[in-house]
C-alpha cells in the first residue's frame, strides 16, 4: 500500500517536472523578439507618447495630445541613466519644473494629481516595470556611453533596444524578456570595436575579452564578442 503511495508520489513529481521542463523548452531563449510584460497600473498614467512621441507635422502648434508628441529626449528626464548603473526615476521636481509653466494643461486630471503629490512633498509611488533579479548588475551608463556617445545613435533607438518603443506607450510596459539568454543574444554578436583604419572606437581602453584585438591588416573594422566572464553582470 505504502509502496504504491510512494510510487505515485514519485511519478507525480516526475510528471510535473517533465511537463514544466517541456513547457520551458518551447520558449525561445536566444531571441530579441518581444515579450510583453504585464500591463501595470501606475498611480498617475504617465503619457510617454505625449512627451517623447514624434511631432505631428500637420499640427504646428502641437496642441492635440492624441496626435503628436514633444520629441523630448529620454535623457532629459531619465538623467541618471548616463551617470549611474541604475537609471532611477526622475525626481518629482523635474515634472514640476516644466509643468508649473504649462498653464494649458494645469487643470487636466493627471496634472492635478501630480501637483497634489508635489504640494504634500510626497514621492509618487511608481511601480517598477523593468526589474532584474538582485544577482544581476546591469549598467545603464556603460550602454549609453557606447551607443549614444561613441556611436552617435539616436537616444530612442539605443534605449529602445531594451525598453521597446516607449514613445508609443502611455505608461511604460516591459516589452523585452530581459533574461540572460536575451542579453546574450546581443552580446554574442560580433561588435565593431575599431573604426575605419583600426582606431579604437571612442578611444576606450577596455576591450572585450580583456585583450586588444589583433590589428586587421586591411585596415577595416575589427569585431569582437561581448563580455565573456560571469562577473561582468553577476557581481
Amino acid at each position, binding site marked *: 500500500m505504502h509502496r504504491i503511495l510512494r510510487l505515485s508520489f514519485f511519478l507525480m*513529481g516526475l510528471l*510535473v517536472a517533465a511537463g514544466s521542463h517541456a513547457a*520551458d523548452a518551447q520558449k525561445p531563449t536566444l531571441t530579441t523578439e518581444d515579450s510583453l510584460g504585464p500591463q501595470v497600473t501606475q498611480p498617475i498614467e504617465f503619457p510617454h507618447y505625449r512627451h517623447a512621441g514624434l511631432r505631428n507635422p500637420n499640427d504646428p502648434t502641437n496642441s492635440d495630445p492624441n496626435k503628436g508628441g514633444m520629441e523630448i529626449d529620454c535623457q532629459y528626464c531619465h538623467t*541618471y541613466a548616463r551617470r549611474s548603473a541604475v*537609471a532611477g*526615476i526622475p525626481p*518629482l521636481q523635474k515634472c514640476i519644473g516644466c509643468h508649473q509653466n504649462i498653464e494649458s494643461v494645469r487643470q487636466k486630471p493627471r496634472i492635478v494629481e501630480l501637483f497634489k503629490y*508635489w504640494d504634500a512633498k510626497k514621492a509618487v509611488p511608481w*511601480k517598477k516595470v523593468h526589474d532584474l533579479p538582485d544577482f544581476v548588475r546591469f549598467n545603464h551608463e556603460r550602454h549609453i556611453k557606447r551607443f549614444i556617445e561613441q556611436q552617435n545613435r539616436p537616444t530612442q533607438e539605443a534605449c529602445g533596444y531594451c525598453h521597446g518603443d516607449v514613445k508609443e506607450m502611455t505608461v511604460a510596459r516591459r516589452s523585452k524578456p530581459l533574461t540572460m539568454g536575451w542579453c546574450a543574444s546581443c552580446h554574442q554578436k560580433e561588435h565593431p570595436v575599431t573604426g575605419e583604419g583600426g582606431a579604437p572606437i571612442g578611444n576606450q581602453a577596455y576591450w572585450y575579452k580583456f585583450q586588444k584585438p589583433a590589428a586587421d591588416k586591411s585596415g577595416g573594422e575589427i569585431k569582437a564578442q561581448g563580455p565573456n566572464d560571469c562577473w561582468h553582470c553577476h557581481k
Partner: protein
Amino acid sequence: MIDSSFDRRDFLKVMGWGGAAVALSGCGNTSIEDGKETVVSYVEAADYVIPGVSVYYNSTCAQCDAGCNINGRVREGRVLKLEGNAASGINRGKMCGLGQAGVQHHYNPDRVREPLLRNGDRGEAIAWDKAYALIAEKLNGVSGDEVAFLSGGVSGHLKVLLGNYLESLGSKNHFVYEAVSPAVVRAANKKAYGNEMPRFSINKAKVVLSFGADFLGSWVSPVHFSQQYAQFRKGVNGQRGVLVQVESKMTLTGANADRWLVVRPGTEGVLALGIINALGASGVALSGDAAAASQGYDKARVTSETGVSAEHLDKLVALLKERTPSLVLAGSAAEGYAHGSQNAAAINLLNQVLGNVGKTIEAPAVLPFPQMAPAKGSSLALKSLNEGLAAGKYKVLFTYGANPVFTAPGSMKFKDSMGKAAFKVAFAHYLDETALQADLVLPLDSALEDWGTQVPEYLADGAQINIQQPLMEKLHPETRGMGDVLLALIKQRQADAYKGFEDYYSYLRSALLQNKGALGGGGSDDDTFWDATLTSGIIKLAGAAGTLSASSAAGLKLPEAAAADAQFPMHLIPSVTANLRDGRHANQPWLQESPDPLTTIVWDSWVEIHPKKAAQMGIVEGDIVEVASKTGTIKAQAYLFPGIHPDAVSIPLGRGHEAMGRYAKGFGVNPFQILDAVYDQETGELAMHETRVKISKVGQRVIVVKDEGVIGGKQDGRRIALSKTTDQVKLSEEI
C-alpha cells in the same frame, strides 16, 4: 503523520523531484516581479545625488574613545559602509571590526525612538516639550548639590556644554565613568613621566615588553598601535622587532608575541623589579631609587613568586640589554590589582632604567584648548557616585554614555543605590539596563546622525580635533542629538546667553568659527573654512610639544603576596575582548557573530580553564561550570585553553545583558556581576583582577559553538588549511 515506512530517504526523493519541478518552471521570468515593487523617486534631489552613485563624508568613529577618523559611504541617502580616513594620523585610513560595526549601532532595530516616561513597569511615549518641562519641574527647588550627572568619557564642545549646564544648575557632580579604562596606568604614568598618556612609539622600539597591554586588541588606541606594530615587525635597519608579552591570560597581543610568558596573577611588578635587579647585576647602571626598589628581587625569589623560569628571565634580560631602545608597557592585566599602582610604577621604572623615556616614550602634543580635552573616565567616579546615591545625597540623576547597572561590580549593588534617586533621566540609544531603571528616557541620535567634536585622549600624531557630522538624515524623527538636548536644557536656565543658538549645529559652527585663526583657518572666509573643516573631518592643530619629566620612584615597594584563599582558590580574570569591550555594543550582531580571535567562540560566554587544571577537576570542553565569588555566582560553558595560568579562570566581559535589545539580551553571562569590591590602594580604582573564585561542575554539558576544531574546521582530507605542530617551526625571533 507520515508512516514510518515512508522513510526520510523516500521523502527526500519526492521532495527532490517536486523541487526540481518548481526550479524548472521557475526558469522563465517568474523571478522578476514586474509591476509589484514600488520605486520611490526623490521629490527634490540635490545635484550631487545620483541613484546608484555613492557620496562619501568624513566623520569620527564613536564606537570607542580612540577617536579614529572615518569615511562613510552613502548611497541614496543611506550610509552603507564605514572606512578609515586616510588623512588621519590616528588610524591612517584603517579601521577595526568594532568600528565597522558602527552601522549596526545606527540601523539597530532596538533603538529608542521616542521619549519614554515611566508608568509603573512601562514606558509611555511623551512629547519632547513635555519631557523638557518635566525635567525643569523636577529640578525646581533642588539644589545643585543634589543633582548628579554620570557620563562616559566626553570631550570637545559637548564637554564644554555639559560643564556649562551643570554650572547653571550649580552642580559640581559630574561623574565620568568608564568601566574599562587605563586609569591606574594614567596615574602611574603621571608619576613616572609627568604625563598621563605619553606617546608610545612601538615602531621605534627594537623590543617591546608588554605587561598585559593588549595594544593590538583593545588597549587605548589599537588601530594606531597595530600599524606601529606592523612597522616594528618589518624592523628598523633590518632588525625585526621582538615582542614579549607577560600576562596571566593570553590576549590577542599575547598570541602575536614572539614569547609569551605566563606569570602568577598579580606578580607583574615582581617580574619587573626582578628584571631591574638582574639588569643591575649584569652591569647596567641603576639609579639609587631603582636599586633600592629592586633590592632583594633576586632570580630565585622572582622565579618562585612569578613562576617565570630562570632561563626565560635570563633570556629576557639579555634581550633588553642587547637591543635598545626598547619599550615596556603596563596594561590592564598589571593594573587590575589592589597593588596595581605599584605594579605599574615598577613597570614604568623599568622603562627609566632601560633609558626608553624620551626615545620610545615621548611627550604628547598639547591641545591648545584645554577646556575641550577629554574628561577621562574611571571606575573611581562610579564608586563615589554610588556612595552618594546610597546615602540619599542625590535627588536627580542624569546618565549618558554609560551603563553602570550592567558594568558596576556586583558588590557595589548600584541598581539599588540608583533607585534612591527620586528622578532619574537616561539619555540613551537603547533601553539598556540603566535606561530601564530611569524614570525618563530621552532617545538620542546615533553617532552617524549627530553633530559633534571629539578630542581623543591618545594624541597619536599631534593635537587634533575630530569632527563628527551626520552621514545621513535621521532614521527616526523623534530622536535628538545629545548636543541639542543639552542646549535645550541649558536654555531653561540661561535663555539669554544661549538664545543666539538655534541648535547644536549653530553652536558648534559659531564656536569653531570664533577660533578660526587658532584652528588654522586664518585668512579664509567663514564658509570656506567651515566647508574645508567638514570635508576633511579633522582639524589638525599646531600645538606645542609637551614635556616629559622624569621623576623618582622613591618609596616604591610591592606588597607581600597575598595568602592563598582556601575557600576561593582561583583568580578570576575578566577579559576585555577586542569586539565587545565593556559590552556597550553587544547588541551589534556582527560583534556577537565574529569569532573571538583566541577561542573562536561566537554568541556566548565561556570560562577559560587551563587543560591541566581541568583534567584535575574532571572538566572537559562544554561542561557547564559554576564560577562563584564572595559576591555572586555565574554559570557558563568551560573552554580548555592553554594560554592561561593554571590558577586562574577567565570570562570575557561584555555579554550577559538582561536588556538592550534582541541581539544582546540573553546571550552569555556577565562577569561584572561577581566582581568583589577590591580597590587599588593608591588610586581607588576598582581592582578588576582581584576577585577570587571557586569553580565547580554543574553536571550539564553543551556543544561549544565555535569555528575551531573538529566540528567547525572539518576539512574532509581536502587540505584546505594546512597545519604544522609547533615544534616543526622556529617560533621566535628572539636571540
